[in-house]
């Protein structure tokens, strides 16, 4: 193994130690990842690579460290940024044709926070168009290949929408990556790629500068190769931001503070409604195994009921498209991105949006427009909001009894590129376990926990109380220790 390969195999925590101990420089660490990124282009994980910018930031980090002014555990750590975060003067596409050539004159709060924490951006990762999808197949910039392969050797999807971020972290092209999660877009690709993927409480990370999909659901979070790395990286992303009215005005805790505490005495809820008809036996088996691991570690596992779970997916597919249909109205060809000329203003709108949006985005804009229309609004949107309240209430009641909930992350392992493309509902079912926590705004994490019969990774999913990420990471860490997931693509 070459030295460069060694560097890309590190965790963020170990890389930080190596930098602090001058075992290697941030520039060397970054160069190793740039090399890896360039060699793995066939994965199509990145839409834009920014190697020069990365080296510049890495050298600046080395200078800070030399002067004893390193700003924390992320200083000098090479990461990737999902191409949904606006990055100053760097092409930002949201995976869509309609944002052709768009270089924002501003930096999203989350990516700015990471930059301020010394993290080194390697590039912008591929994603489902406007983060709408569970396979990364809807990207204008093409599908991403999962670095994991099944026994039959077929190319697999990395999951979505943060598919490029997941592939990049799994393939050791970066030490961590940002994702965004609206209904499972961090956690499902993490499960498909053998990674830790974490969605914090709604309001923990600022949404300012993140291209909006569904405003009441969108949250940024990290994809990493360990629970500790996720906690470290979230620390560099989170924080109150006055520019986002839905940002939570509270202190950011040290998310790593509970990692070594174990789960002795912790109460873990097992929601019975997550046992779905026709669920793959190996998913059920993994879930049972997870319960056993936590019990063995001293946690009390308690059956709980979340009676409205079955309504979560349909509710999500009303609320999210409704908000998206309005959020995407600004892509009209007037001020930035793609413009396709037309004879009239309406003609220009039709041509621009018709050409600029892909099939899945178009489908969701249509669904969203429909459910908000006069005569349908009460039956769909209002009803969905009412059900959303009931779902949140289910969780609130469950958390009177337990500290965290344990469920599977996704109903299957990664599937082949091209599968489920003719069946949107089958595709939407990927989110069935992740969507309820999204609707309730709760923090949740996927931890790699085992392999399926084809040797593909599977994840277990933990959900915690609002703003109790410390307990979430603590339980996730115990799960991680028990699962001893060491497989790599």
């Amino acid at each position: 193994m070459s030295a460069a390969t060694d560097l890309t195999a590190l965790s963020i925590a170990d890389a930080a130690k190596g930098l602090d101990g001058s075992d290697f420089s941030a520039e060397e660490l970054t160069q190793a990842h740039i090399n890896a990124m360039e060699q793995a282009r066939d994965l199509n994980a990145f839409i834009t690579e920014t190697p020069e910018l990365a080296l510049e930031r890495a050298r600046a980090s080395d200078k800070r460290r030399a002067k004893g002014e390193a700003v924390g555990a992320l200083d000098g750590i090479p990461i990737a940024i999902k191409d949904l975060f606006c990055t100053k003067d760097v092409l930002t596409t949201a995976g869509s044709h309609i944002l052709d050539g768009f270089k924002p004159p501003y930096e999203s709060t989350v990516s700015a926070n990471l930059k301020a924490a010394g993290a080194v951006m390697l590039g912008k990762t591929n994603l489902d168009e406007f983060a709408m999808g569970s396979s990364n197949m809807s990207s204008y910039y093409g599908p991403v290949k999962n670095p994991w392969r099944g026994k039959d050797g077929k190319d697999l999807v990395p999951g979505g929408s943060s598919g490029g971020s997941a592939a990049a972290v799994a393939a050791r092209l970066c030490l961590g990556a940002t994702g965004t999660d609206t209904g499972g877009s961090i956690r499902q690709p993490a499960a498909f790629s053998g990674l830790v993927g974490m969605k914090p409480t709604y309001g923990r990370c600022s949404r300012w500068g993140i291209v909006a999909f569904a405003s009441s659901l969108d949250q940024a979070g990290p994809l990493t190769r360990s629970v500790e790395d996720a906690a470290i990286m979230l620390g560099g992303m989170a924080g109150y931001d006055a520019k986002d009215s839905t940002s939570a005005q509270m202190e950011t805790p040290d998310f790593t503070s509970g990692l070594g505490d174990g789960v002795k005495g912790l109460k873990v809820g097992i929601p019975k409604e997550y046992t779905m008809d026709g669920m793959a036996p190996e998913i059920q088996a993994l879930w049972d195994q997870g319960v056993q691991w936590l019990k063995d570690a001293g946690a009390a596992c308690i059956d709980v009921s979340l009676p409205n779970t079955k309504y979560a997916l349909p509710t999500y597919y009303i609320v999210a498209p409704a908000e998206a249909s309005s959020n995407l109205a600004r892509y009209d060809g007037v001020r930035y991105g793609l413009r396709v000329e037309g004879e009239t203003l309406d003609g220009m709108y039709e041509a621009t949006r018709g050409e600029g949006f892909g099939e899945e985005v178009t489908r969701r804009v249509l669904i969203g427009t429909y459910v908000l229309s006069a005569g349908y609004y009460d039956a769909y949107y209002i009803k969905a909001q009412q059900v959303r309240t009931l779902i949140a209430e289910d969780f609130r009641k469950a958390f009177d009894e337990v500290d965290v909930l344990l469920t599977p992350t996704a109903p299957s392992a990664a599937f082949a590129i091209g599968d489920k493309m003719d069946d949107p509902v089958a595709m939407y079912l990927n989110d069935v376990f992740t969507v309820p926590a999204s609707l309730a705004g709760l923090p949740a994490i996927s931890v790699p926990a085992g392999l399926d019969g084809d040797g593909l990774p599977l994840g277990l999913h933990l959900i915690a109380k609002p703003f109790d990420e410390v307990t979430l990471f603590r339980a996730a860490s115990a799960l991680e220790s028990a699962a001893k997931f060491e497989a790599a693509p």
Partner: protein
Amino acid sequence: MTYLISGESGDWEVVIGLEIHAQIISQSKLFSGSATGFGAGPNTQVSLVDAAMPGMLPVVNGYCVAQAVKTGLGLKAQINKHSVFERKNYFYADLPQGYQISQYAEPIVGEGTVVLDMPDGGTRSIGIERLHMEQDAGKSMHDQDPKRTFIDLNRSGVALMEIVSKPDLRSPEEAGLYLRKVRSILRYLGTCDGNMEEGSMRADVNVSVRPFGSDELRTRTETKNVNSVRFVMQAIEAEARRQVEAYDDGEEIVQETRLFDADKNQTRPMRAKEFAHDYRYFPDPDLLPLVLSDAEIDAIAQELPELPDDRKDRFIADFSLSAYDAGVLVAERETAEYFEKAALGHDAKLAANWVTGNLFGALNKAGLGISESPVTAEALGALLGLIGNDTISGRIAKDVFDEMVETGKGAAEIVADKGLEQITDTGEIEAEIDKIIAANPDQVNDFQGGNEKAIGWFVGQVMKVTGGKANPKVVNELLRKKLG
């Protein structure tokens, strides 16, 4: 008094409601920090939020909220402690977000009342249905280029209040009075400058008609963006007439949006019903519900200035002014303040007469507003002082005032320069009277024969020889004594 339109089938009554769009006075926009000044170069007051760049988020401007609450309190309206911003979705080139952030189901202000002073001295109460906040769109400029439309986003995101009346108005005149009264209240409050020419205030006019005596509400039309009080009154008249004629012809009125063409003095449909937008309102997920505490509302209430109705009552009580004079004086905040300054230490009724008479006359003639008056309130006060202490007569004062308007000089200076002080020396006046009596025996006989009015002739003669400077009171007394 009732305003009726006579049609072929009988008399028709008009039912009118106004939606007033008023720009909130604020340094910055409703959801961004951009400036709001009028007349800046195109696209120079546009933030990333106003241009709806990807990932940008609105943050509500607390000052604009306070201004809306203040307005609600001024309209004696209920303040809703919980209100919600919603998105009104439609596509237009000067609407960058593709939606306007407005309030819909839950506005910040609920029902209130505006009292109109009617010309007959009575009052009429007009109900306010609601007041909500919303952001303005940008401006499309179609006249800059033969083929292209240019967009100016300076107005994009500017804070507006929409004040919706109940359908309580019954004539163009009432609608005009209502619009003026609301404008006056907003100006007193300092929440909108009410400048209709610059577009900081405009009205949508809802009109329907019904047979006189009926209490049904028939289909109404909405005439949009009428930008002067006069046009509002004309638009109502034209639209009501059109509706009566339509009913008389057996036609139906369709609910539609119309525009007023002032040149033709008629309304015309803006867009047919089939093009009517479905705005797909829903709560803006980027913004939390707007929650106000009692303490916040109370703090704003503490800052409320005296409003026109209260000031009118005070003028009547403290200065013994007529309801009419008081109403005229308080209609504009500047006029009321001018009057109070001018009247300070002087006869208030006299001051009221001078302000509504000579001053208004001079300003009208010069085409000036009261804030541009060549005679300041203090200067007019000084003139009133000279009248009050008998230095000059009322008649002379009018000449002095004209001179003040013309030259900007002070009253005392003009009086001194021209020697206009009143003659109150009885000896001097007595000598003149004696001469006149001696020279006019016929008039003396006339008066003494019982023609009381003849005294006026003598007064006139005395004034003539003294150049108007004789104190009229002294002249009268002496004449009566001498003529017996």
